[in-house]
Structure formats: structure tokens, C-alpha cells
């Protein structure tokens, strides 16, 4: 009996396959056609145009004029680009691993059968329901040195409350913390992975290695590596694209002292505040290439540490 979803080549008799082949292929292209159109019109063409515009000087009003690599040169000399690239990289390096680890721990904790399970899951999913802007605003209110509860609690516990929004060495952490709040989605992805582990594997593991720690490292973790990969990739991509929270908290100048100036904010600023579209397009091109390389790198290394169970595609 062929397993669900398995499409092992040669499992179907040749004659049936050939007949099915042509009609299937036609249908395949037809069904995917709307999406292919969308890909071309809304993604490929604008992407190519962006690459082209990156080599022009374009101020929206008026025509673009060719400047070759001048925008890229200007980028190399622009302190704002370097500062924001460093901040974005720092943000990614801080928030992505911390988020992954915390989400994993949380998912493991949520994986227990307990009466309050439903309640806990709802709580951790709630931040998903709040838009990024509101979340950032509420966070700012919470961290307010005057009326904010966070500093009050920290003070009550005896800690020295930092000046979250005004201290340049701390402000980036505000953004990182804000990124950790909607942990719910990553957690539930991990949770899904944990719950997908078949019963028989769990029981066999329990027999083999009664120590929970042992089971975790040698059985559970390897089985959820696909989820780790997925969260890692999505995490990297979205951390470099962080924008709304950065603008709400740091404004267009990344106060205080440009510590919260993110790459996307500089891009946005160049495009819509200075009307320097060519420059923004150059920044976007560089970002695309960097993130693409990072993602490819992750996928490459993934072959050695990700384990797919029974999947043949």
C-alpha cells in the first residue's frame, strides 16, 4: 500500500503515467497560471525594475537619469547606512536566537497535558492579534519612566530601572524585547512539531532512555529540526525587515543617538522623506542580496542537521 503523499517514481504503471502526464501537465500549468502571472507582475517585474532604478537618480517627480553605480558608492560613504546595517545585524543576531530558544522552551512547557493548557495557549497566542503599531505604542507606555509599570516592578524587586527609551545603550534592547513578545507564533509552530511526534516513537523513547533530558536532546530535538529551520529562516528574513516597531520607537532618526536606526527605516526615509528613490532602490537591492545569501547559507547547512521523517520531496 503506498503511503499517504508518497510519490515514488515508478510506482504507477508506465502507460497510465504517460496518459496522465500530458493532461496533468496541462492542468498543472493552468492551475498555477494565476499565481505565475502574479509572480511576474507583482514580484519579478518590480524586482527587476528596482535593480534598474538602483542605478538611476530618481526623485519621483521628473524622469530618472542614469548614474550607474553612484548610488552604491554613496551608500558606502553614508554613515547612516553603516550605522543602520550594524544595528539591524545586531538586532537579528540578538533577537533570532533568543526568540528561537525561548519559543522552544515555551513549546516544551506547553506540551504537557494539563487543565490550563487551553488558557496558556490562548495567552501566548494573543500578541498575534495586536497590530505591530499598537503593540509598539503600548510597549512604550509600559516602559515609560514616569507612569510605566515595568520600571515600577523592577524597582520593587530591587533592580535599577534603566532609562529604556533614552539610554542609547539600552534602547536597542527595547526593540529586541518587543520582538520577543509575539513569541506565540513560533511557539505554536514548535508545539505543532512536538505534537506531531507519533505516539509509538514517544513510548519507545520512554522505554529506551528514561531520563527526560536525554530524550529531549537525542529524540525530540532532532525530530523538530524542520520546525527549527522554518522558524530560523522566517526569523532572519523578518528581523532584517523590521520597520514599524523601529519607526514607532525611534522615529526616523533612530533616537536616542541612532541606536534604534534600522536599515529599513533608512531605506524608507531615503525614499519617502528625501524622495531619493534611486538610493532607496540601491539599498533594497543590497538587502535582498544579503538576505538571500544568508537564507541560502542556512538551507545549505540545513542538509546536515535537519531530519525529515518519511518525506520524499
Amino acid at each position, binding site marked *: 500500500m*503506498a503511503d499517504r*503523499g508518497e510519490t515514488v517514481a515508478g510506482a*504507477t504503471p508506465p502507460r*497510465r503515467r504517460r496518459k496522465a*502526464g500530458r493532461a*496533468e501537465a496541462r*492542468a*498543472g*500549468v493552468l*492551475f*498555477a497560471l*494565476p*499565481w505565475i*502571472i502574479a*509572480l511576474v507582475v*507583482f*514580484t519579478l517585474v*518590480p524586482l527587476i525594475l*528596482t535593480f534598474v*532604478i538602483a542605478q538611476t537618480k530618481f526623485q519621483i517627480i521628473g524622469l530618472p537619469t542614469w548614474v550607474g553605480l553612484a548610488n552604491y558608492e554613496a551608500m558606502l560613504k553614508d554613515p547612516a547606512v553603516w550605522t543602520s546595517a550594524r544595528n539591524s545585524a545586531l538586532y537579528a543576531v540578538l533577537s533570532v536566537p533568543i526568540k528561537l530558544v525561548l519559543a522552544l522552551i515555551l513549546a516544551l*512547557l506547553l506540551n*504537557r497535558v*494539563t487543565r490550563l493548557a487551553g488558557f*496558556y*495557549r*490562548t*495567552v*501566548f*497566542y*494573543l*500578541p*498575534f492579534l495586536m497590530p*505591530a*503599531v*499598537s*503593540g509598539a505604542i*503600548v*510597549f512604550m*507606555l*509600559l516602559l515609560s519612566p*514616569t*507612569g510605566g509599570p515595568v520600571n*515600577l516592578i523592577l524597582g520593587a524587586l530591587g533592580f535599577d530601572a534603566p532609562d529604556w527609551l533614552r539610554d542609547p545603550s539600552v534602547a536597542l534592547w527595547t526593540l529586541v524585547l518587543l520582538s520577543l*513578545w509575539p513569541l506565540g*507564533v513560533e511557539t*505554536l*509552530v514548535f508545539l*505543532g*512539531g512536538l505534537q*506531531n511526534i507519533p505516539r509509538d516513537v514517544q513510548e519507545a523513547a520512554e522505554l529506551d532512555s528514561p531520563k527526560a533530558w536525554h530524550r529531549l536532546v537525542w529524540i525530540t530535538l532532532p525530530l523538530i529540526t524542520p*520546525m527549527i*529551520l522554518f522558524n530560523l529562516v522566517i526569523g532572519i528574513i523578518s528581523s532584517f525587515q523590521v*520597520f*514599524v516597531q523601529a519607526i514607532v520607537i525611534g522615529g526616523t532618526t533612530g533616537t536616542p543617538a541612532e541606536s534604534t536606526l534600522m536599515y529599513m527605516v533608512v*531605506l524608507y526615509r531615503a*525614499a519617502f522623506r528625501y524622495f531619493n528613490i534611486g538610493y532607496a532602490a540601491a539599498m*533594497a537591492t543590497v538587502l*535582498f542580496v544579503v538576505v*538571500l545569501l544568508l537564507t541560502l547559507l542556512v538551507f545549505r547547512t540545513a542538509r546536515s542537521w535537519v531530519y525529515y521523517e518519511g*518525506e520524499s520531496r
Partner: protein
Amino acid sequence: MTAPPLAARRKPPRKTLARIVYHAVMLTVSAIFLLPFYWMVISAFKNNAEIFARPMLWFPDPIRWENVADLFTRPDFPFLQQFLNSCFYAGMVAVGTCLSCSLAAYSFGCLRWRGRNFVFGLTICALLIPPIVTFLPVFLGWSKLGLKDSYWPLIAPYFLGDAFYIFMLRQFFLGVPRELMDAARLDGASEFRIWWQIVLPQVKSALVIVGLFAFVYTWHEFFTPLIYLQNREDFPLSVGLFTFRSQRAAEWSMAMMGATFTALPLLVLFLFTQRFFRQGLATKGF
């Protein structure tokens, strides 16, 4: 060897302690997660001075119920109209997404054709591109078509597809047994009928999940509607709130009330369909 049923087991004291510690930790973490929400809701029922009062008010005193009426009757914030706009916008996008993405996902997951893997690879690449990169040419395009000041640019693309959901749905389609489809083919059914009558019912829960996700994400979407729409009456709620906050930066309590009401429908929707959410995310992996 079968273990005695849970209820019949007597829990040793060590396990009870573990359970207490577990719940203590979880409740503390839950409290931290709930804090921003709680703060938002109580701020909605205070006035500006009370929000920043020192010492802090952990519970509004008095509870300003009139803020609710205030929000609904503001002339510069047509909340009700914007709420309906949001419902329309998010609803249409959800429907369009389900339709278009299930078509594409069926093609990638169940049909074989030349170039399929290449196009799917392109689909993954599309995920890597931040929307702001492709935004300007698309915007100019819609403007040239004269459709700038409408919901067309916001909704129409989703009737063609979206990379994220296509990716997600494909995973589900991969799980549909091939025999079902092959049997239908032998019977002479067209691919469309197979898709509509055989395969879709098999992934019903996945479709509900995609629809709900699309609804929620669209509900929050504010940059695109802001750029394309001009009149306050046309705005969805997300943009209305953003505009309100920009124009009335110091009216905290109103802003919080608006944010609470924006989150409320989603919360209701979530609680109502909770089981789908959890299930859906369980199979989101590769």
C-alpha cells in the same frame, strides 16, 4: 505493558511539587505576556492624566465607560464605517487567498509538470523580498490604470495568489493520498472537478486556517491601504487608528480604546475557532 489510567494513579508528592512549580512558572510568564494587553485595556478606560499618574493606577478608578461612547461619536474618526471597511477588506482578501492559493498549491503539490520545481523555487524567493522593494513600481502601475483610490490594488493581487499561503497549503496537499485523485482520473473527471470535489474537502481545515490567517494579517495591514486610499471614510480600521494617533498624538486614552476595539473582533474570532488555529500550526513544518 499498559499503565493504569491517569485518574487512578496516586501522584507521589514529588510530582505534585513539580506541577505546582510548573503552574507557577507558566502563570508568571502568562502574566508577562498579558501585561501589554491588560495595560492597553485599562488605559482605554482612563483619561490621559490617569494613564501617567504617579503612583500608578493598576485598575482604572473611576472606570470611564464614557470613553466608549466618545470613541464611537468622534466626527474625525468614523469608527463604525472603518470597522465595516475592515470587515469587507479582510473578508475579501481571505476569500481570494483561499481560492487562488488552493489552486496554485494543488498544482505544486499534486500535479506534475515541467518547470514546476523552478516556479516553486521562485515562489520561495518571493518570500525573501520585503514589500517596500516592489512597492513603488506597483504603485505607479495602479496609478496609471486609474485604480489608485480604491480597494482594487489591495484585494485583486490576492485573487491571484500569495507566496506564504501557497507554501503552507502545499504541505497539506502533499498529504492527500494519490489514489483518490488517480481513481477520479480513471473515472474521467477533469482536474478541476478533482480539485473542487475530491481534494479540497480533504484539506478543509487547512483552508479554514489559511482564511483565518489571511483575515487577521489583513486586519492589521495599514501601510498599503494608507498609500492607496485617500478618504477617511474608505480607510480600514488599522489606518484609521494610525491616522488618529498621528493627528492626536497626545490623546492616549482614545488611542488605547481604539486599539482595544480593533483587537476585540479578532479575539472573538480566535476564541471561536481556536481549535483550527492550533491544528493548523501543528502541520506548518516542512
